[in-house]
């Protein structure tokens, strides 16, 4: 008995000591998440995130669609207080979400840029540079001075300093030149074709995209005194690389293979359209037609009316009804009695998400031609732009031609000073529901369309459309010295550097 017991204890002790042997404690490899993946997967993920965070993201519409009078929302139970009153704080979702999303996306792009520089993968490098420029252009347009040179460098700079907005813009222009030149020589593997969910490895498309993005960046600065020569020099560099700009039918779209499953639908559709089971989302129900936006179509026999807006009762009715932006609305007046978002922009759960549409590009080129930055005929390009918008919405070129010929609001004016107003107003009309931030930015830059109504909500204290976002509260908490150095920011007076009008 005694022997047996001593034996048991010995075994127990040996087992315990045996546990000490090498390997017993080496069980800390993550079974849940990868710590490293093929860069192609990051490319795909980041491209899709850019779409979901910018033109496909709810926040690109939640305030801009209202301020630009495409849509309005009844407010009701104290909802949309900030949007309706223009009074917002550093904690408002508009201020915080854009910042958080864009810098999150930039981390992936910066990682891909660094990675592909090391491996000499020029296709990825070009995309990373282009997409970084895309994100940063929005950051500057929303916030002005932002961290750039020290951003996305994790532990190297835990408190990144803020760079001057104009300096960032100038560097973006350079980066886009580099990107376009990379696209000229890059090689694309079959795997890259799969990973590139924007252009399927089409280098021409990427070159045009980079060039058009650069054109947009340059045009932003159109009103700045003494900037004309810089813009012309930079455009000369674009012309030199030979890719040209996004033309009719060349638009850049994202489609990873959207599915009709919660979380996998087209992001714009998922928020402003219908759930996987076909039911209207709440945002679809709350976003109603704004009178200014609808009347422009209604009063000018514009066939796009039926595309941008639904008839009452979400298309089940026969009339188009709108509400004035900011009016307090009885709860009965919901989507049942007022028009909502139309089928021209809400096409299907798997609709490709527009990143850079051909009509936006054409409107930009029309403006550039009008200003003499580009050699083309501004009128022709303008008409192409309107036509491209009709076609995107599912209308015909003929309908566009009729509209352009018959309607005074679309006719190319004789007076030179009216031309810009026409281009911008028609650009505003066209951009409804594909990128509502750009018209807001044009409005800030040019004060056009000049008759853009202000919210009539009783909570409005400053009768002015904000000219920027506030830095997010999180920045004041985590990078306070740098953000405080930017001074007191006011959404009505602290303009972005290109906003000089």
């Amino acid at each position, binding site marked *: 008995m005694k022997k047996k017991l001593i034996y048991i204890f010995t075994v127990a002790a040996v087992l315990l000591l045996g546990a000490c042997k090498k390997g017993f*404690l080496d069980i800390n490899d993550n079974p849940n998440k990868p710590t490293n993946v093929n860069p192609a997967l990051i490319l795909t993920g980041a491209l899709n995130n850019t779409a979901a965070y910018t033109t496909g993201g709810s926040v690109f519409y939640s305030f801009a669609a209202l301020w630009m009078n495409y849509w309005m929302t009844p407010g009701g139970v104290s909802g949309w207080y900030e949007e309706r009153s223009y009074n917002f704080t550093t904690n408002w979702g508009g201020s915080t979400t854009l910042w958080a999303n864009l810098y999150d996306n930039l981390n992936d792009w910066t990682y891909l840029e660094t990675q592909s520089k090391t491996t000499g993968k020029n296709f990825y490098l070009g995309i990373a540079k282009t997409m970084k420029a895309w994100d940063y252009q929005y950051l500057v347009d929303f916030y002005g001075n932002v961290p750039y040179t020290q951003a996305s460098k994790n532990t190297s700079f835990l408190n990144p300093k803020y760079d001057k907005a104009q300096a960032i813009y100038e560097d973006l222009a350079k980066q886009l030149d580099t990107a376009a030149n990379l696209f000229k020589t890059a090689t694309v593997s079959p795997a890259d074709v799969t990973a590139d*969910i924007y252009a399927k490895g089409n280098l021409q498309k990427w070159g045009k995209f980079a060039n058009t993005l650069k054109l947009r960046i340059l045009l932003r600065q159109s009103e700045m005194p003494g900037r004309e020569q810089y813009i012309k020099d930079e455009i000369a560099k674009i012309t030199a690389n030979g890719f040209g700009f996004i033309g009719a039918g060349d638009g850049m779209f994202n489609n990873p293979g959207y599915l009709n499953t919660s979380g996998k639908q087209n992001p714009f559709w998922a928020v402003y359209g219908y759930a996987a089971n076909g039911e209207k989302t709440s945002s679809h129900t709350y976003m109603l037609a704004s009178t200014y936006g609808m009347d422009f179509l209604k009063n000018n026999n514009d066939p796009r009316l039926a595309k941008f807006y639904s008839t009452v009762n979400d298309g089940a009715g026969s009339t188009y009804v709108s509400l004035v932006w900011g009016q307090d609305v009885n709860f009965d007046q919901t989507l049942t009695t007022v028009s909502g978002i139309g089928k021209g922009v809400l096409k299907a759960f798997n609709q490709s998400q527009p990143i850079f549409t051909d009509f936006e590009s054409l409107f930009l080129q029309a403006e550039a031609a009008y200003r003499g930055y580009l050699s083309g005929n501004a009128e022709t390009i303008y008409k192409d732009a309107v036509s491209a918008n009709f076609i995107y919405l599912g209308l015909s070129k003929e309908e566009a031609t009729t509209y352009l010929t018959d309607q005074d609001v679309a006719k190319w004016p004789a007076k030179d000073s009216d031309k810009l107003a026409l281009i911008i107003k028609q650009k505003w009309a066209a951009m409804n529901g594909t990128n509502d931030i750009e018209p807001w930015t044009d409005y800030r830059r040019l004060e056009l369309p000049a008759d853009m109504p202000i919210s009539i909500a009783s909570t409005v204290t400053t009768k002015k459309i904000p000219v920027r976002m506030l830095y997010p509260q999180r920045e004041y908490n985590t990078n306070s010295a740098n953000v405080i150095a930017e001074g007191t920011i006011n959404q009505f007076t602290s303009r972005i550097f290109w906003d000089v009008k």
Partner: protein
Amino acid sequence: MKKLVLCLFIFLFCGIIQADAQSKNITGKVVASSDGLPLPGVSVRVKDTKKATSTGSDGKFTISVNPNEVLQFSYIGFIAKEIAVGTQSNINVNLESDSKSLSEVTISTALGIKRKPKEIGYATQQVTGKALTSSRPTNLATGLSGKVAGLQINQANNQIDAGDQVRVVLRGNRSFTGNNQALLVLDGIIVPLSQLNSINPNDIENVNILKGANAAALYGSDASNGVMIVSTKRGSSDGGSITYTNSTLLNRLSYFPKLQTEFGGGTTQDDFGFGLYTPFENQTFGERFDGSIRPLGRILQDGTYQMVPYSYKEGEKENFFETGIDEQNDVAYSGGNENGTTYINLQRVNSKGYVPGDKSNRTAIRVNGTRKLNKFLADYSFDYTQRNYDKSTNQVYNNVINTPGNVPLTEYSDITSKYGNPNDYYNDYYQSPYVGLQQYRNNERRDDLLGNVSFTYKPVDWLSLMARGGLSTKNTQGKNRNYAYTYSDFAHNSGKGSAATQYTRSSVTDYSEFESRYTGDFLATATKTFNRFKFTVIGGAQVIQKNYKYMTQTGNDLVVDNLFNLDNRTGEIVGSENERNSRQLGVFGDITATYNDFFTIHISGRNDWDSRLLVTNRSFFYPAIDAAVTLTDAIPALKESKIISNLKLRGGISKVYAVQVDPYSLVSTLSPAGGFPYGGTAGYSIDNKLLDPNLKPEQTISKEIGIDIGFLNNRITLETSAYLQNTKDQEIINGIDLSGTTGYTSATINTGEGENKGIEFSLNAAPVVGFSNGFRWNVGINYSYNTNKVLSLYQGQNQLGIGDNNYIVVGQSFPSLQVSTYQTDPQGRVIVDANTGLPLSNPINKDFGQTNPSHVLGINTSFTFKNFTLSGVAEYRSGNVFYNSFASTLDFAGVSYTSAQAGRERFVYPNSVIQTSPGVFVPNTNTTTINGNGSFWADGIRNNTASNYVMSAAFWKIRELSLAYQVPTQWLQSKAKFIKNASIALIGRNLFMFRPSDNIYTDPEINVGTGNAQGVNNLNQTPPTRIYGFTATIGF
């Protein structure tokens, strides 16, 4: 199972009948010789037999013996006595108190090592099973509240069987973001704190609380927060007994927030700002109640309306909640002899929640035993518990409390009734709470198995070798069901908001969770005495493995309505999986040296290896030393003292390392980017959390000193402690906040230091002496003061948010509450806009102070008179604030009491000022708020300013009251011999609460969670309850 119980009964009856055949009855009374008071619970046994009984509350006993037998009387703290029976039929016994009595008591310390109080150099406190269960708590945590100085227990939620939602902290918070909750040790084996709810309170022999890190160095990292050592009952070695206990407890919603009773439903106002009645509105900004009969809800399909009086319906919301019932039945068998013991307990608890339709049950069996074989001792305990829950996942509290006061809510309980069905329910925006309860259900089954087996072998009398294996597993399987519903065309087309979606399809979620912990210990203990020196040397090793796995799958838009199977879904399965595995190894040594039985020095050291850290950081060593001297033994003059019977000084210092992070917290990860995979297309994105491969364990240095004094034969005892704990290299689990511009939003690193200090007093006394009628009064007072401070955080950052408005702020107690507030002038008056009269919001959050109480006072007392015992526990806490975030919803909905204080009219904001020029503030006497109705109370300026809902969290609570009656032993002997003892008690828990008058909302203890962030509630916790009922025990 029933059969087994029956067999036990039969066996028992046979035994009794046999015993009766050859003996006579002896009665008697046992008293203490010092004061002549009767002694209850004295063990009376017949020498060399299994026959035994114990004295009743009056000190009396009855036992059947043969004239030639000898009776033994023994009682803790008294010298045992033997008396030959002879011809006597009535024996009165005087027991002498044993001056050395304290040395007889042993305390279970680390790894189950029993030590005398004299030898312990750190603070411990013991709660006996009896003290614990006097008010029949259904879980252990609630039973410990107020009974231990420095122990703070918060019941966060009152959902049915919400025993898991308990936070248990000893001596306040040390770690900023890591675990601060006490370690739970069950029969020597570490088990997860969540098992607290699995341990049947009736199985508990006692709970020893080792308050500091010092006491626990031997348990390893996990013990830096103090330890609760729970020992379950072993069978008694004197024959067999069976105890049956029933307790039936009712619980009823209490501490409902104060609500306004003047205004009815509505959201719009007339041109003068007066509210208009909207019959289908859930906000309560309508007209003043006038008692008229008005329509409620929209017009029905048949063209009629529901007509109700437009007046406040008293008690309607309270009556929505039912009376919950917990019915608990226990049968325990305890038996054994010199060679072994067995303890078996079967338990069944049936619970009905106070939320209509919620129910649960719990079935548990515990088998504990010991077996002796020469120099070999086996000890085992197994506990299997199965629980079944059937509850709603719909948080109806929000819905119920927001219902306008004129709505006859309880009339809608039948959801097929004319006005109660979803189509015709009055409210346009929310479903009826009764529908919510029935449409969203959860079923869960949880199986817990706890067990341990130890083998001790004593080859020679000074050496003991022990090997022990323990496991605890928790296995949860659950299913959430969301039922389908189709609204009628009429309701759908009427514009009714909740019917906007005409056909809601059903969905199902299945989940499973597995958690296990295996522990292996090897321990060698040597005890030797050399003259006046006694040495105990322990060496040992420990291995621990923890595994965790969680899986969930959801199927949406089920094809066949309400067939809750994943295969019946449309679209993809949405699922996730999470697994965690870790291992720890430890070796330790422990030396105790005692000189002349009054001076003890104790040194321990342990080295751990932890799989969660990189190989270069995973080994760490931590030592501890403590000493105790009993002056009453050491100094002859004190030894003779009639007043001071015990005086012990103690002190200790220890260092403990703790790994706070979960496994896999060293290398940053990537996750599928939003929405991926789309069919065959995958995409990844870098996660936002930066991880540090060189993470080190968190270090706590803990120092404590204390004095224990006993007066008048230890009739009054006072234990005091003071401690200081410094925790540095804090592991910031959820990460230091980083600017998103770095590419990451948080970084898990070692940084920062916190200091935590406090004092504790524990006074126990039997103040009333000398009443020969048996009146006794015992009182225990436990007081603790704890304060902590953030000494440093991270590079220039002076604060860190840990969620729920809780922050770690340099130079302040942690965590502290920060919320949005109004702009104030230097005198603290609210600045209002000169034009609108509305308070101006301040973009910078204000700090309101700590969310953990600094003062905790617990008082427990009992009065015994004849066979009655009245006992109670009261607790006071203060020094902290809490944020009633749910009150913001009350204001928003217009049901809050405050929102009707100004009569729903424009008013001058109280104690406000207007800024006339920079820095010049003039009291506001006549600028009224531009709005007075919903547009003030619900439009952001009031309900989004959280400081409106922050207040002192102080309270006095009568935690428990019980009145117990012990059936006299003589009566049982004469009327029902087979019953050894019987008692019944009326009990109440949380009967009364006293709180500052501005707290018109709720019990501050109710909380969003059990993590470090405290002091915040919302409408997702079910509100506090009062519990009352009875318990009856019969012993055979």
